[in-house]
């Protein structure tokens, strides 16, 4: 960037403004960790619950979902440390973060409301998860995440209507399309952007 004495044209001023504003947009693309972490954790929990239900006499197979509690701590600590280290905080970062915190609080409220019938919670949680995923896709202008959010709504319907034999598999399937596929694409994009 040159010294201040040079007189700028309108085109130069506009170029500087748009170039600088665009540079602050890429920051939240480095958030693939949360998508991959939650994607794999939920795939593990949902498949474990399904297999325990099918293959064992366990009374409460949904108990494997308690893993999301330490998972939430890991996610929170990772986000806090990364946030502290980040040299810049954009309004898009804040919007992204509060959207997911809002979802997290809604999920806790949903679990409390549905605590007596946890085996029926899947379609509701998928429907809720669609909202931050869909919005996040628009915030970071990343189509796979937008489609991931849409796929959550589709799998919420599948989970609700498909019946007990296929319905439980809607959650791991949704994780593939909603978190894991966009997460790996985002990670690859970050890597390519940095090279």
């Amino acid at each position: 960037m040159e010294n201040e004495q040079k007189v700028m044209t309108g085109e130069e001023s506009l170029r500087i403004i748009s170039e600088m504003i665009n540079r602050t947009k890429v920051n939240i693309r480095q958030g693939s960790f949360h998508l991959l972490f939650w994607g794999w954790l939920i795939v593990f929990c949902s498949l474990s619950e399904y297999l325990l239900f099918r293959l064992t006499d366990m009374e409460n197979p949904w108990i494997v979902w308690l893993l999301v509690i330490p998972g939430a701590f890991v996610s929170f600590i990772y986000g806090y440390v990364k946030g502290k280290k980040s040299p810049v905080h954009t309004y898009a970062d804040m919007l992204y973060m509060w959207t997911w915190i809002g979802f997290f609080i809604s999920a806790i409220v949903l679990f409390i409301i549905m605590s007596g019938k946890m085996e029926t919670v899947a379609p509701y949680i998928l429907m809720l998860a669609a909202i931050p995923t869909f919005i996040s896709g628009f915030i970071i202008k990343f189509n796979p995440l937008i489609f991931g959010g849409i796929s959550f709504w589709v799998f919420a319907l599948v989970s609700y209507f498909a019946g007990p034999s296929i319905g439980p598999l809607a959650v791991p399937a949704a994780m593939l399309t909603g978190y894991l596929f966009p997460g790996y694409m985002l990670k690859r994009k970050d890597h390519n952007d940095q090279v």
Partner: protein
Amino acid sequence: MTRFKDLDPILHSQLRLAVISLLVSTVSAEFTYIQEQTGATAGNLSVQVTKLKEAGYIEVTKKFSNNYPQTLCKITSLGRQRFIEYVNALKDYIDKESI
């Protein structure tokens, strides 16, 4: 080629405009981040940041993080207002130029 002489002189400089444009879409940014994004030297950037601070367009906070000094810059409401006015004035000039 259109030249500007009556635009806000604080903002009508390449580096200061770049700094304000970066800060306008951020809650806060570190000095080193601004330096990296603008490609300016630390000395030149420091001078321009001081000018923006003295004009009341940005706030500068110095603190320590992991024993390293950290300089955080944040746009003020005055700075945001002046940036909007600058962009509107720029738009007027470009509109007039295209007629």
